[in-house]
């Protein structure tokens, strides 16, 4: 029990539980499987982006360009499958390849020029997005192939409400779940994963400990690129419209969710479980507001309050711990 209280995640989880209880009391339809499956499907796009951002934050860097990477990957994928045909696997490969390549460009710039990651990725965000707008002219794509539409409708299993409304575990959600599992294994059980934490803690210490900084950094940014590419594909599956301006601008929402989940902007700290909780909290706040019939005018106020509340819990806990630590030293 004591051990649990040391983790930031415990406090976020606590806020989620309290908040869910309140919503459920006001509208019991919140705590239904149907709503659960709908929400996790809607948030699979943000969720996948958040996995990528978690990796970068742990490694001690930051990536702002991931929304532009997602947009470019999505657009290239859509244009190619419309022009040359293909199937869902080619769509995946295309989005992944574009994502990884753009991520590698980020990593190369960051490693060789040694510019702060935030500056580099703000610059590449503008470059990637700018080039896309120049080439595409901002044209939207609606006419996605039939198989692409059909794939988005697949459910791994289907249930039915009393009113006859069908719902279930969407294939889109399962992409998110799969991504989280793979990312979790990498972070937790591979040397590469330990290297990412070490690098975020202290670059020099990691280098002396024998971690290959170049390779680790290349991996981190290309992995974030890959996540962005997949997220772009997932977003296209969700809305069946490819609009170049629909993703860029959501960077801070995603970074906020990840930081809410306990990852530190200073690097070296963060878990995937925390990130999932962060995304969950953001998701149920938005969902819960409507379900509690709160007027949309109040959304932003509540969202701000709850972010402060959940961060304050663990900040307070950390402070008391720090105080105690000083007391011991004095003795």
């Amino acid at each position, binding site marked *: 029990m004591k051990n649990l209280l040391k983790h930031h995640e415990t406090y976020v989880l606590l806020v989620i539980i309290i908040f869910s209880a309140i919503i459920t009391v006001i509208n019991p*339809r919140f705590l239904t499987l149907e709503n659960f499956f709908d929400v996790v499907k809607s948030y699979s796009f943000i969720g996948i982006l958040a996995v990528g951002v978690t990796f970068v934050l742990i490694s001690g860097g930051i990536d702002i360009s991931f929304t532009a990477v997602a947009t470019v990957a999505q657009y290239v994928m859509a244009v190619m499958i419309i022009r040359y045909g293909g199937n869902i696997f080619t769509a995946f490969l295309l989005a992944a390849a574009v994502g990884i390549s753009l991520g590698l460009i980020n990593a190369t710039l960051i490693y060789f020029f040694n510019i702060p990651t935030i500056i580099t990725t703000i610059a590449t965000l503008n470059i990637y997005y700018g080039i896309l707008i120049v080439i595409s002219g901002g044209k939207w794509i609606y006419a996605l192939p039939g198989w692409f539409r059909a794939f988005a409708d697949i459910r791994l299993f289907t249930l039915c409400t009393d009113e006859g409304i069908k719902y279930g575990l969407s294939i889109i959600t399962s992409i998110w779940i799969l991504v989280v599992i793979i990312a979790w294994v990498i972070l937790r059980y591979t040397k590469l994963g330990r290297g990412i934490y070490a690098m975020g803690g202290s670059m020099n210490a990691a280098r002396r400990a024998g971690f290959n900084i170049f390779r680790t950094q290349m991996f981190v940014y290309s992995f974030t690129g890959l996540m962005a590419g997949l997220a772009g594909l997932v977003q296209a599956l969700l809305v069946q*419209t490819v609009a170049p301006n629909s993703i860029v601008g959501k960077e801070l929402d995603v970074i906020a969710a990840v930081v809410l989940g306990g990852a530190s902007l200073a690097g070296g700290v963060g878990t995937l479980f925390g990130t999932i909780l962060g995304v969950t909290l953001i998701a149920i706040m938005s969902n819960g507001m409507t379900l509690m019939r709160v007027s949309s005018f109040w959304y932003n106020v509540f969202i701000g309050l709850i972010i402060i509340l959940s961060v304050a819990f663990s900040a307070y806990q950390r402070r008391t711990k720090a105080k105690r630590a000083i007391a011991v030293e004095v003795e």
Partner: protein
Amino acid sequence: MFNQKWLKVTLIVGFIFLLALPLFGGGGKEVKEKYEIVTVVKITGIPWFNRLEEGVKQAATDLDVNSYQLGPADADPAQQVKIVEDLISKGVDAICVVPNDAKALEPAFAKAKDKGIIILTHESPDQKGKDYDIELIDNVEFGRHHWDKLVEFMGDSGEYAIFVGSLTVPLHNLWADEGLKWAKEKYPNLKLVTKRIPCGEDQELSKRKTMELLKAYPNLKGIVGFGSLGPPGAAQALKEKGLCGKVTIVGTVIPGHAAPYLKEGCMQWGILWDPKDAGYSLTWVAKELLEGRKISDGMQVPGVGKVDLDGDVIKVDAMADITPDNVDGFGF
């Protein structure tokens, strides 16, 4: 060593590029003699304003002016103000604006007036600091028409919701105000379930909000969507829940985008005007004013329609209904 060398090379190449920039903008002198009329839209790279740009470009050739379109990358009022201010410093002849936030633009418009730059707006009839506003629809009529169509499909009683692009978009909120007044008078049994929801410029968000509304208000029978991405997002949510036709969706949409939803019956009725006409009319009016002519009742905007002058608001009626049968005939 390696790093420094590359940095130098990059800097030198960049510097040379900057020096060479004026070469690309050649022929500046000839262009100067033409009127420079700039249209600033809410956001670039969306179909609505791409279509508007076609009108601006057509006016450039037809009217022999130097007219072009600019806009921020996302619908951010601050960025739009910045663009307008840059144009004022540049000293263009006229600026036509489709405002993101009417209030935010007022100081910039005052500055333009001091410099003698003509300011026209579109979709912002109550704008302060403008010379004229141009509307291709009668906004009161446009708002009411949505409610009339909503009632035609869902009946004159029941619960419904409203989507707007954001709470500061002047026209969306004006239509909503007018429609709500009309409903109070004519359809007293309609019940608005919650305040207007700002999601109409984001399809993913509109879809999500519709899903949530369906759970929060199980008796929901209709949605009026302003902002071209609201209705398609709502229609998609209905399709996913198998509720097409059970909840009525009417609103402003791009015909090409809404076509599948209208044909599947997931959306019932679209209403709008052709933004290309707006782009053309703005530039046309600007040129008339620059050449010292007055705008008067009954004047003809070539290829668009007759002017109905109401104070400093120029109305040209060009409202269009979009139905499953005519949706393919719009060409955008």
